[in-house]
């Protein structure tokens, strides 16, 4: 059996099965080796161009297929899993580790899925794995948050499945050669804006993917569920679900304009809610939404450069978001506190964590010499290029200009929020009196490794650019990425939004608050409405019905004839008469249908 016959996801699933068999050091040796093995296997498959086919219901499944964006995503998923394993090493969380392998295996499976059914199956595997990770967080609300998370993703999955069925059925009717193919819906994009039954399938697929990407109105599951993971669990969670959704959107819906609007909304939403957040990991979840918004904008613009930008940004984002969550996770692990208001002054004793957090924060804001700069600026450039192309053609493109300005505003905002504010409140501000040391060596090692990647990709962007979907465009862009003008734009914007933070510090006091989101509707409004309006109403109806039944002749007598205990014990004798009545009613219905309808 050749290496290329082995689906990379299978390596990780095998890991999930094997890990419980090992103990102590061996478990971690195996857990660290497997993601690297999966990485090697992924690249073997990618170089081979691997394609395997399995017959399924008269069609073919393609579980190992290499999309243009597969190399970037497969690589980062494997690296991420290895980093997460290293980070979690000191804390023996067996269930979580196994679930993480299932979860990452699902993500890797999606990255190699050549058909819609394979994609869907791995998609649901991810939902299972991630739900278990949330549950094993053992925080206060882990169980409830996990349930809400699962419910949300189950519904998203149903939409996705339904969409797939509709699309495949339509393709079968059109006699498509490969009805299950998972690729760009280019043939359907023309009639895109028109929402109707004929492209309902595509819309449902889009909705299913967007739920996982955290797009509005379903952004709130990210800040709801992820902070409930354990210190290592949240690191795993941040990496796979949303980025897999980005991958699938990139494959299937590149160039779909609506993604731009959703992306802009997410970018601003993430900052606005992030500024108000007090739970440090929830703040990072809001900025996660903000960053995924940038990726959606890149996908929505749909030029080669913007797609490269979105893919590169997903890669860079996984690394620095994991880094940020590792750093805040270390603070949580060492102090047991997660509210920004309760922290402060930790720069004295946690220097490594502080510098890692700063590097992560600079990366997320796209500071020069970090990975965020070299990836995000591609999307920015692509917006400008596309705008001038459309201006030359005389097509409407104002939305691109607005997008560009809002994009830059959100970039300034995320620096203020996820870099300056986080660093300031955790490591400086008032002295909280806490003197925790830096975390154990493995957590430090994982953070330093990821911080190193952030800087590496910032200084040598070519490493990442050469595995992007469109390497030509990326290589072209590499020549101008560090122009003085680019650098000064970022420095000016970031520096002065940081100044704005300190000027506004008096009104940025932290209290123990959360801020309501759309999930209020199903977490509070609907349950309350049910309990306080609908249920009493139903009870009233019930009483009325009982009163009517009581008033019917016969029933009272029937009950009176039986000694009460037997009446209770033998069940309700009345029960037979209702079905019998229904039988007669149905006969009547059939007679009416048979005699009346044909004569109409």
């Amino acid at each position, binding site marked *: 059996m050749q290496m290329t016959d082995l689906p990379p996801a299978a390596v990780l699933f095998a890991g999930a099965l094997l890990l419980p068999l090992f103990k102590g050091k061996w478990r971690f040796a195996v857990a660290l080796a497997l993601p690297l093995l999966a990485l090697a296997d992924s690249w073997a498959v990618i170089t081979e161009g691997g394609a395997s086919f399995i017959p399924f219901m008269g069609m073919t499944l393609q579980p190992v297929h290499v999309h243009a964006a597969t190399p970037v995503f497969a690589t980062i998923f494997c690296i991420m899993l290895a980093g997460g394993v290293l980070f979690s090493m000191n804390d023996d969380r067996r269930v979580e580790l196994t679930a993480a392998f299932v979860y990452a295996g699902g993500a890797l499976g999606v990255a190699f899925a050549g058909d819609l059914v394979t994609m869907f199956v791995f998609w649901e595997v991810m939902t299972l794995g991630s739900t278990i990770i949330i549950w094993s967080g053992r925080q206060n609300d882990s169980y409830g948050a996990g349930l809400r998370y699962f419910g949300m993703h189950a519904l998203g999955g149903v939409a996705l499945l339904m969409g797939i069925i509709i699309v495949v059925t339509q393709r079968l009717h059109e006699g498509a050669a490969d009805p299950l193919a998972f690729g760009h819906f280019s043939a359907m994009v023309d009639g895109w804006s028109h929402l109707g039954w004929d492209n309902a399938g595509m819309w449902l697929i889009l909705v299913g993917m967007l739920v996982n990407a955290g797009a509005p109105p379903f952004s709130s599951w990210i800040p709801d569920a992820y902070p409930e993971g354990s210190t290592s669990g949240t690191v795993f969670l941040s990496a796979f679900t949303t980025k897999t959704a980005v991958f699938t959107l990139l494959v299937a819906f590149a160039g779909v304009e609506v993604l731009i609007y959703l992306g802009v909304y997410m970018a601003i939403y993430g900052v606005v809610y992030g500024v108000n957040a007090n739970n440090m990991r929830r703040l990072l979840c809001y900025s996660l939404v903000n960053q995924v918004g940038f990726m959606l904008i890149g996908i929505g613009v749909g030029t080669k450069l913007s797609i490269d930008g979105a893919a590169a940004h997903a890669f860079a984002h996984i690394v620095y978001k994991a880094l940020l969550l590792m750093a805040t996770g270390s603070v949580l692990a060492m102090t047991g506190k997660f509210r920004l208001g309760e922290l402060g002054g930790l720069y004295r004793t946690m220097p490594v964590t502080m510098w890692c957090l700063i590097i992560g924060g600079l990366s997320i804001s796209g500071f020069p010499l970090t990975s965020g700069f070299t990836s995000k600026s591609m999307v920015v450039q692509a917006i400008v290029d596309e705008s001038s192309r459309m201006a030359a053609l005389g097509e409407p493109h104002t939305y691109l200009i607005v997008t560009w300005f809002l994009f830059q505003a959100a970039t300034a905002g995320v620096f203020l929020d996820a870099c300056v504010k986080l660093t300031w409140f955790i490591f400086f501000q008032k002295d909280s009196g806490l003197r925790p040391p830096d975390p154990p060596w493995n957590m430090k090692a994982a953070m330093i490794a990821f911080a190193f990647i952030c800087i590496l990709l910032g200084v040598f962007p070519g490493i990442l650019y050469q595995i992007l979907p469109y390497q030509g465009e990326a290589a072209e862009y590499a020549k101008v990425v560090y122009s003085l003008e680019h650098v000064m734009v970022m420095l000016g914007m970031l520096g002065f939004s940081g100044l704005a933070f300190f000027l506004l510090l008096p009104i940025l006091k932290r209290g123990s608050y959360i801020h309501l989101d759309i999930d209020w509707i199903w977490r509070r409004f609907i349950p309350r409405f049910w309990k306080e309006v609908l249920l009493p109403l139903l009870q009233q109806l019930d009483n009325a019905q009982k009163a009517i039944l009581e008033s019917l002749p016969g029933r009272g007598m029937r009950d009176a004839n039986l000694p009460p205990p037997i009446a209770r014990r033998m069940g309700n004798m009345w029960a037979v008469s209702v079905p019998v009545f229904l*039988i007669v009613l149905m006969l009547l219905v059939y007679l009416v249908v048979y005699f009346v309808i044909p004569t109409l």
Partner: protein
Amino acid sequence: MELIRHNLPALIVVTPLVIGLLTSIIGRRGLGWWMAMGTTAAGLAMSVQLLVDVLAQGDRTVEYLMGNWPVPFGIGYSVDPLNATVLLIVSLLGAVITLYARKSVASEVPAGKLNFFYALWLFCITGLLGITITGDAFNLYVLLEISSLSTYTLVAMGKDRNRRALTAAVNYVVLGSIGACFYLVGVAYLYMATGSLNIADIAERLQPIYASWGTEAPIYQKTVITGFAFMAVGLSLKLALFPLHGWLPNAYTYAPSSVSALLASTATKVGAYAFIRVIFTLMGVGFAFGRLHTDVALMVCSGAAILVGSWLAIRQTNVKKLLAYSSIAQIGYIALGFALANKDGITASVIHLFNHALTKGGMFLALGIVMYRVGGTRLSDLRGLGRKLPITMGAFTAGGLGLIGVPLTSGFISKWYLVSACLEQGRYELAAIVLVGSVLALVYVWRVVETIYFGKREDEVNVREAPASMLVPTLILVGASIYFGVDSSFTTHIAGEAADFLLKVKP
């Protein structure tokens, strides 16, 4: 050997009948199960052979004349891909559940009545196989009564566990008899109009009658149509199609575990088969759907069955009853499939007959193990059993995934075809109902799964995993339901054959 093979269609019905009679009169305890097991195993072998024979025939039918009397004077048995499949379902489930029944029944039925129990068990299977194979409308009624009467008694035998089994049985007797009676009245009307009892013969004689209706002098119009109405209602009741499902939940809930499994996986399936047979072969689908709009009535009923059944399932606290209501919803899927009357729809129906029999049978068997080990099937009895009975509960969960229709389970295949069929007919609202049904199924399955794996037990009962004789049949059924979700070539092939056969005989 050739003699046996030639007489297979008769033997498959007569064998359990004769052995059943013998079982009821033998005195030795413990022998009953062996006789039932042997008979059902032989029945399985015969039905497999019959299916192979049918598929080998050019016209896909095997005819058999009882006592060589030619139809319409004698009783003719006729096997085609559709009823060969249903025969396979009944005898397969019959054999596997009999294998399981030994310990389970011994723990739920008094030892003195065991032989009697297995006699009834065989009579029930006789009736179900007979309904499936017979080509005679009146003979179908007789066999319907054989299976029903034995079923009533089997349900009542749950009385030693719970007295409610008696009311459930009485309820079932009343409703079941009315249903059978309606069917018989329908047959009588048709006999009046056509003078024949053979299904194929009636269909043929109906043609001139149909033809006369548009003219000045319609013949027997009211008679025939009234007959159809009676038959449709009678069979809807046997099929437990909403709103005539009233007898089902209690009968399934309070019957002994093995009986619940047998009923859930075969009885309603045979009812569905009989309905399909009456619509497609006897009335003729073009007439039944095209002119009489039976399809509209069926779609409304089955759509309501899916929604109401699933909704009621969510509200149950007894898991057996929950599965019973879920069955009502699943019957909705089956009826919806053949109401659509296109190839995908009938394929979906037949596949779902097969898949649901395996899935629900497996789940009832898993619950039977809970009954055997814990002594109850309320949600509270299942709390935290995930650790105590890992294999059983794993099987139950896998079955639950099938009910939802998760890909790689057989439920997915059925729903795939069903949704395709809805879309093909442009019935988006029905496709949406199927979808909503899946979401509701997710909710009710989740409720149980949550209890199994996350529920905390107050009483630390010391239960062990079930004996192999119960575990193996459970795993066979659940395993098969997963297997046919991964490799659906066998089920889609035979269901496709059945669909082709039914649509070809369109008048």
